[in-house]
């Protein structure tokens, strides 16, 4: 595979505490790759080591291409206006300002608002725009939708998909399995500084198995059934209701999102 990033045996210690214990993975060009883990799993540290913002104590990191970085804890001077920040960063990167990208992110709409007056979503979009200023090949996004409302998340997800369509490689850190499920080609789940799962969302699903919860509403009341074989259970249940002459009003099937599987793996209590 054409690799954009290769991480081999990455180690990082703070004092006597080892937070990254030999991470090993690669990210293909044009891929959306996620580092997942609960808070404190080492996602941000790993990302910052790859970005070159943090020194590491062992292993190697190879990055092929120009990087654009959106930090989790990003902040700017409170009186700066969005376009002033864009111009400043563009000048330091010797980059032309891409007004199409700014329009897509809604930066030009922010006008003369100062940084401190922007909402969380607007700040996120601005930091994403700053990360994209130099037209990077690889975009790093650390918890990109943290603190955003539903509309903001959907909008940012669209932006991320657009970046992928442009052929950019995207690496994101998240603790939101639903977000990762919706966006990513491959994921690595971190627990205690180690990768405990590396693969696609489908592979994760296959690894943890499929468990379903069936909610059925009938004229006599509601009922809930657990099943590992959805087809068989549904056929049996519907056959029973029909035989007893009970009208079925509604059926809802929960596959069980990957969220619980992720939590189990990330916390080291894989079923």
């Amino acid at each position, binding site marked *: 595979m054409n690799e954009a990033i290769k991480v081999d045996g990455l180690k990082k210690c703070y004092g006597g505490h080892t937070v990254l214990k030999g991470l090993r993975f690669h990210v293909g060009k044009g891929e959306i790759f996620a580092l997942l883990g609960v808070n404190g799993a080492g996602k941000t540290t790993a990302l*910052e080591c790859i*970005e070159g*913002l*943090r*020194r590491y104590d062992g292993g190697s990191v190879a990055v092929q291409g120009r990087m654009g*970085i959106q*930090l989790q*804890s*990003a*902040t*700017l*001077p*409170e*009186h*700066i206006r969005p376009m*002033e920040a864009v*111009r*400043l*960063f563009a*000048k*330091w*990167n*010797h980059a032309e300002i891409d007004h199409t990208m700014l329009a897509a992110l809604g930066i030009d709409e922010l006008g003369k608002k*100062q940084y401190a007056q922007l909402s969380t979503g607007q700040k996120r979009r601005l*930091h994403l725009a*700053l*990360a994209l*200023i*130099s037209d990077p090949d690889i975009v790093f996004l650390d918890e990109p939708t943290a603190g955003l409302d539903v509309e903001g998340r959907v909008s940012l997800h669209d932006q991320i998909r657009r970046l992928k369509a442009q052929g950019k490689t995207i690496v994101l850190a998240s603790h939101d399995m639903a977000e990762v499920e919706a966006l990513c080609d491959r994921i690595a789940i971190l627990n205690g500084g180690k990768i405990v799962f590396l693969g696609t969302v489908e592979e994760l699903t296959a690894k943890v198995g499929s468990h379903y919860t069936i909610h059925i509403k009938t004229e006599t009341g509601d009922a809930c059934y657990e099943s590992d074989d959805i087809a068989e259970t549904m056929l049996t249940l519907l056959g029973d209701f029909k035989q007893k002459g009970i009208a079925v009003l509604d059926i809802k099937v929960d596959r069980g999102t990957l969220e619980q599987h992720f939590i189990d793996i990330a916390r080291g209590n894989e079923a």
Partner: protein
Amino acid sequence: MSAFLYGVALQWKLDIRSRALLITCYVVPLLFFAVMGGIFTSINPQAKDTLIQSMTVMGVSMGALIGLPPTLSEIYGSDMKKVYRANGVPLYLGLVSVFLSAFIHLLLMSAIIYVIAPVAFDAALPVSLPAYFGSLALFTAVSLSIGCVLGLMVKRPAKLTMISQIIFLPSIMLSGIMFSADLLPRFLQVIGKLFPAAWGYDLMAKGGFSLGSLWPLAAILAVAVFLCGLMLHKLKSEA
């Protein structure tokens, strides 16, 4: 170069938008000048001879020691520095642009005092304009360099305010701008000499570059620049 100049110009605009810096660089020093200028010259007519210098030393000290450090602390005490690094902006830009911007603001404030004092209080103009503004520029640079050390060194705002005041108040009280330093006990005179305000005032009041006042300022500047470089290097390697 264009990026650097844009950074400095932008910082200058941000400083104008920031009420805190506007207050410490213009409002308080000029109000102090308006009130104390009248009082000083009424009580002691001889104060007119050094009114411009004393009011300027007070204003520059306030802007440099109280106004500048919080701006630097905002940049280097937060993750803003990481945003700069992540996006290709060099770490020193914040320090240099804040320094240059404050330098311009303080020179403007000093120029206002220079123009108004003779009209409002019949204050005497310095003998040599180039020597005066040369001395002022050096004193301003030295004071700002101390402000830079404070802004880089102290991360917590409350602690920063306290330390700034601990340096600012003796600078003003012991430098000789409020009353002659000769009236102070010997040990307070010695303490006063530790601060650039005493040497800056001396240099500007004498109206020429006297080596006796020049070298202490140069020494303080050199130490402050060294410390700033050291702290920037530390910040860079903190990762």
